[in-house]
């Protein structure tokens, strides 16, 4: 069996963590390993994993391949996959790789499964694990078809480290595209609230915007308390749909957008710890928390049925009071 690990280099030429993890998944399949790398430059990335045991390194590089663009990335991946003639192709689930993986599979006539959380070879069979219905069910899949292209989620395999120096066979690719990437828009400095590498995810729920026991809403307090927790912990900020929707209507916290939403129609981030505040719903507690290790929640309502059984600790308390004290302690 021939296995191709296919990934893009990062802006600094290195291979990202998610890609190094996907390489471990590819190695775990056994068989003859090959590597295909694309990006502005690929030598540094190849050297980073030179000792991974690959029999061959392919590369597609140049200014045309510097950024995530469907036409150029798909052509690069297609060329390397065709040169390698692999049975299994493993890519990371980065946003860049994810936006072309299935298109590349289509060009190769390959089967495709994305966002795997497990990939194993045993008794001559390959079994892939992935979630269905927005992380509600876990399924194990086998396929007869080869080639089979898969992407694997970050956080499921240890990153492969195998530095050395690699000889890369460069392929010439002329991409067909009418698209130009013109830039990246980063969130404003004071809204730097999504941090994939943070240890902690703070989930803010609609309770922050609700009428409090004194009969008043305290949106300004809620805003400043949440921001002070973010400043003190450098944590990631997630939110429930209810709160995000209210913010869109100008009724709640001005810095929340749909990019913060966790749950079915939001994201399911991976963090070591999660703290849910003022949330009641299944979405923030179950779906949005799916990949959170240790979980705690603060809610005024002791009967919050979603926290019970999903969180390790439920503090029945006023989140305003706790957050204020907590931010002081963590300063």
């Amino acid at each position: 069996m021939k296995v191709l690990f296919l990934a893009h280099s990062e802006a600094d030429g290195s291979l990202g963590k998610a890609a190094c993890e996907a390489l471990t998944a590819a190695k775990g399949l056994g068989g003859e390993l090959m590597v295909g790398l694309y990006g502005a430059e690929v030598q540094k990335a190849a050297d980073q994993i030179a000792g991974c045991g690959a029999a061959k390194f392919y590369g597609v590089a140049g200014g045309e391949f510097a950024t995530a663009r469907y036409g150029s990335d798909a052509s690069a991946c297609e060329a390397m996959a065709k040169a390698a003639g692999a049975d299994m192709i493993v890519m990371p689930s980065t946003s860049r790789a994810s936006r072309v993986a299935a298109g590349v599979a289509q060009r190769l006539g390959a089967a495709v499964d994305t966002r795997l959380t497990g990939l194993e070879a045993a008794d001559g069979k390959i079994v892939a694990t992935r979630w269905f219905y927005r992380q509600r069910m876990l399924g194990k899949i086998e396929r007869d078809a080869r080639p089979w292209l898969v992407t694997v989620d970050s956080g499921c395999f240890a990153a492969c480290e195998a530095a050395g120096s690699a000889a890369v066979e460069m392929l010439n690719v002329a991409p067909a595209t009418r698209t130009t990437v013109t830039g990246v828009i980063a969130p404003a400095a004071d809204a730097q609230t999504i941090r994939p590498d943070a240890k902690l995810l703070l989930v803010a729920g609609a309770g922050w915007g609700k009428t409090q026991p004194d009969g008043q809403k305290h949106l300004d307090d809620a805003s400043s308390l949440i921001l002070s927790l973010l400043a003190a912990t450098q944590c990631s900020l997630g939110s429930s749909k209810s709160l995000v929707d209210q913010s869109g209507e100008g009724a709640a916290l001005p810095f929340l957008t749909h990019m913060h939403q966790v749950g079915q129609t939001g994201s399911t981030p991976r963090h070591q710890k999660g703290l849910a505040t003022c949330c009641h719903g299944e979405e923030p507690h179950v779906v949005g928390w799916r990949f959170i290790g240790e979980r705690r929640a603060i809610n005024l309502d002791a009967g919050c049925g979603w926290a019970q059984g999903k969180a390790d600790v439920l503090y029945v308390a006023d989140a305003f009071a706790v957050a204020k004290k907590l931010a002081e302690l963590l300063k």
Partner: protein
Amino acid sequence: MKGLQIVVLGSIVPDPLQTLEPIAGPTGPALKNELMLPAVLDPWAGHALYEAASLAKKVEGKVYLVALGPKAKLQQVMMNVAQKVPFEIVVLDGPAGGFADATETAKALAGAVEKIPGLDKSKLLVFGGWQSASRGTGAVLQMVGEMLGITDQFQGVDELVLAEDGSFTVLERIEGGCYQKSACQGAPALLGWATGNLPEPPNNPQVGMQNMRLIMPALAKATPSPLKGEGLRYASVEVPSQRRDTRIVKDAPVDDIARELADWIRA
């Protein structure tokens, strides 16, 4: 750019508030009481539809919704969706669940798009949700694009701004809360939408009546599209047991709670 043809690919999913339980069906895994579960338009596909309608209004374009799903359920959901924005529907009667194969789904959809009368690829924008809430592969649109020969594709789109000459700029979600901005020369192109910028339109009974005039005949002549799932086997599907023993801390002083949380966060 006048006369754009915007084809939205989207189907239905169980209402997110329902409890889902997998069972073994005759052709592989399925959901318990699948046909009884209340369904909704797949949320990201819904955003795509509303964005399509808003764009079509500006450019005198036309919106098609191509939906592969069980006909009876589609009809129920359309009673509501039809009231939102004007569109013409093409129905493929087949499975819409999370366990259907993405490639087979894409083939059925691409075939249906090709058959739209008067389709002009130089004016074609294919829209859809960047992932479904069922299978969640983000694979179908890319494959449909390839099958239709569209190699200008965008995923996780939150904004599309069309210029007079038909060129457009697009914002795609990337890691870390950032957007990648691109400029494309124009149709044909494919866009997998995330949330977009538009709220769900209010119900408009007049639009509903107009739509239903086309939806009922489209449902009646739905193309049967059974998906075989050839060569695909599910070794298991389960709802992982994930019950935690929750310690409930009640009537504790705020200072104690804050201190405990601070220790935990710092650990």
